[in-house]
């Protein structure tokens, strides 16, 4: 945390780290945006909250979460490969994982969620 001390992101980051490290044993280690938002006692409109999530996903020293995506086509849910989401973000085009058909306005059907990273799992095992 030291790197973030005194920065605007520190209070929300501390709250999220505390939440992730102290979850009861057996608690699912996947999280929606809403669950993280609730844990940080803030709103989705808070740019500082989004920044804290970004730190947890990408930071060298505090990488506690991995981000993944689900496609819900109205009938079924599909886990999307990271590379397919990356491609869709660049090109605006996402092919349906089963039919291969390009999904119009795909962002409406794609939902990000978060999963404990190896670092978080190891930290929880040590505690």
């Amino acid at each position, binding site marked *: 945390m030291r*790197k973030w001390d005194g*920065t*605007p*992101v520190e209070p929300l980051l501390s709250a999220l780290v505390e939440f992730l490290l102290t979850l009861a044993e057996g608690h699912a280690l*996947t*999280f*929606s*945006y*809403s669950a993280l938002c609730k844990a940080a006692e803030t709103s*989705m*409109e*808070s*740019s*500082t909250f*989004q*920044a*804290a*999530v*970004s*730190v947890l*996903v*990408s*930071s*060298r020293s505090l*990488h506690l979460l*991995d*981000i*993944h*995506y*689900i496609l*819900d086509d109205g009938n079924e*849910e599909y886990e999307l490969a*990271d*590379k397919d*989401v*990356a491609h869709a*973000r*660049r090109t605006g085009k996402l092919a349906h994982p089963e039919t291969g058909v390009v999904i119009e*306005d*795909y*962002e*409406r*059907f*794609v*939902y*990000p*969620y978060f999963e404990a990273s190896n670092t978080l799992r190891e930290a929880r095992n040590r505690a």
Partner: protein
Amino acid sequence: MKDYSQKDLLLLAQRNPALSIAIHLTALGGEPPSKDGYDEFNGLVDDALDFCIREMERQPQLHYDQNEDRLSKSLISPMLGMGFEVDSKANGGNVDVAIELGRSYSWLGESKIWDGPAYIFEGYLQLTTRYASGGEYQTSVGMITFCGLKRSDQAMLDWANHLSANGKDVSIPNMPIIGSTGFRSTYRSERSGAVMSVRHMSVSIYFKPEDKSGRARVSKSK
């Protein structure tokens, strides 16, 4: 687990540049490093710097008498709330501004208070021959010029001309730059051979109000 769609997030971010940058950084931070990803990172750094420059230029009275270290720290402080890993070390042995995302992407910046083009050139040499590695995903850097004089655009034109005449292996794609408050140049890294991209930007901290209370304020702070 399913709540906010990608579309919902983009709609949330529509009117808030800092939120938009943070949301995009989260998505980018979860991807494996790639050339496209680095281009996106550099675009987000540009957006964040534009935001920071606008914020700083809105209140020159808070900055016009500060030194280079404090100006660098003030400039990048909004970025600390956007999800970048930002360092403003600003001491002899380190680059002034380092912006990173995860283990791979980085952007380095050197900042100087405008004191003529030869002085800025020294900072440019520090940045390009001392700090910039030219390694993979480390090929974008920037020169930040704080301009306390009138006509920051003229200062940038002087700087562009000086760089063009004196820089080693420098190319400025859009010369001549007319009425510029910023421009881009490239050079080839001596270390790695990579083509490096340099963003040159000015931050106007000129503050000389001519009304009575403004004059009093400036003379009081001296």
